[in-house]
């Protein structure tokens, strides 16, 4: 194809570096059969891809569930029934703290997967533990918020707005709690089983889950907290 005269392997590496996705180099029309690409007679894609893609579909459906709660909150935000309004129940400093904690936990989660790819058990565990601790801090802050509100008599049954508020924020907190449980089992599985392929697949899924929770939190702190406080 090229006239560089380099050995084929060097040429291939150069091509991959410059154009990892082979944009513009992909064959149009019938091409040779690529094993694992799901074309022709070669069977489905590898399990790593199918597992990740399937979990992606689940996450999108989970985000649709969250969107229902967002819609309920958007509709109910004025329905205070004479009770407290949004700007009376929001403490922006705590939300800023929660946001920072969750964002950094997303970062450490990604670093843990980079360590997984480098097959470093120690750093994977260290970064997963850091993710878990940050997630725990997030949950404790949220519990503190809910407890303080409850002490002031602000509970879900007070008004339609509060029902949707506690529903939306609580659903996210529930997801983070479930994620923490999952994280604990993943750390144990790495400890016992090491980086077997199915463990790595589960780590891919856990990463996706954790980042998706952060994406949902972006929506919550913007629409519920910042726009409610303003």
């Amino acid at each position, binding site marked *: 194809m090229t006239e560089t005269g380099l050995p084929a*392997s060097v040429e*291939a*590496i150069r091509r*991959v570096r410059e154009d*990892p*996705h*082979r*944009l513009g180099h*992909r064959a149009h029309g019938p091409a040779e059969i*690529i094993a*694992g*690409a*799901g074309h022709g007679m070669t069977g489905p*894609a*590898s399990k*790593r*891809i*199918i597992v*990740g*893609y399937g*979990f*992606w*579909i689940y996450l*999108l*459906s989970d*985000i*649709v569930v969250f*969107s229902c709660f*967002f*819609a309920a909150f*958007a*509709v109910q935000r004025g329905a205070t029934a004479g009770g407290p309004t949004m700007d009376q129940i929001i403490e*922006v400093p705590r939300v800023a703290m929660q946001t*920072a904690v969750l*964002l*950094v936990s*997303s*970062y450490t989660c*990604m*670093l843990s*997967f*980079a360590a997984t*790819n*480098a097959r470093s058990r120690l750093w994977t565990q260290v970064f997963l533990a850091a993710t878990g601790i940050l997630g725990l801090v997030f949950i404790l802050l949220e519990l503190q918020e809910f407890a303080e509100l409850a002490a002031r008599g602000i509970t879900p049954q007070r008004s339609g707005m509060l029902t949707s508020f506690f529903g939306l924020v609580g659903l996210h907190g529930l997801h983070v709690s479930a994620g923490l449980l999952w994280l604990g089992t993943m750390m144990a599985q790495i400890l016992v089983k090491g980086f*077997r*392929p199915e463990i790595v*697949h589960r780590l891919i*899924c856990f*990463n996706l889950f954790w*980042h*998706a929770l*952060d*994406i949902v939190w*972006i929506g919550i*702190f*913007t*629409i519920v907290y*910042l*726009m409610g406080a*303003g």
Partner: protein
Amino acid sequence: MSNLASDEELPTGVLDNREDHSPGDEPLEDAGHWVRHANLGLTLSILLTAGAFFLAGSNIIYGPAVPIALIVLAIAQMGVHLVFFLHITTGPDNTNNVLALAFGILVVFLIVIGSIWIMDHLMQNMMPTRMEDMMQMQP
């Protein structure tokens, strides 16, 4: 149980990767590539988040425009997360991921915008329940 044979090692160095990528996966790259990726994503996220909290607490821009600005910042930050943390790209190996995402976003928008739209109209056509509103309806 596990099917070890189906998970072939990705070849190092040579990625004749016309296979799809699953979202969140990190194909083999040179050392530090994904760490740099994560650092960049974290930096952008911090900037956008700090901007959102700053705008919400200040009045440097026209008041009624603040919610719009916040939503724009939120969408930008979700984009940063998708690109830098979930590794959604526009590459041909990501077509399935992007299509699924597009459908998800469509459903989310239908639910949220549709609910707000319908319930807002419903509210306007409701019989007023407060006495003062009732009085205003009298000719």
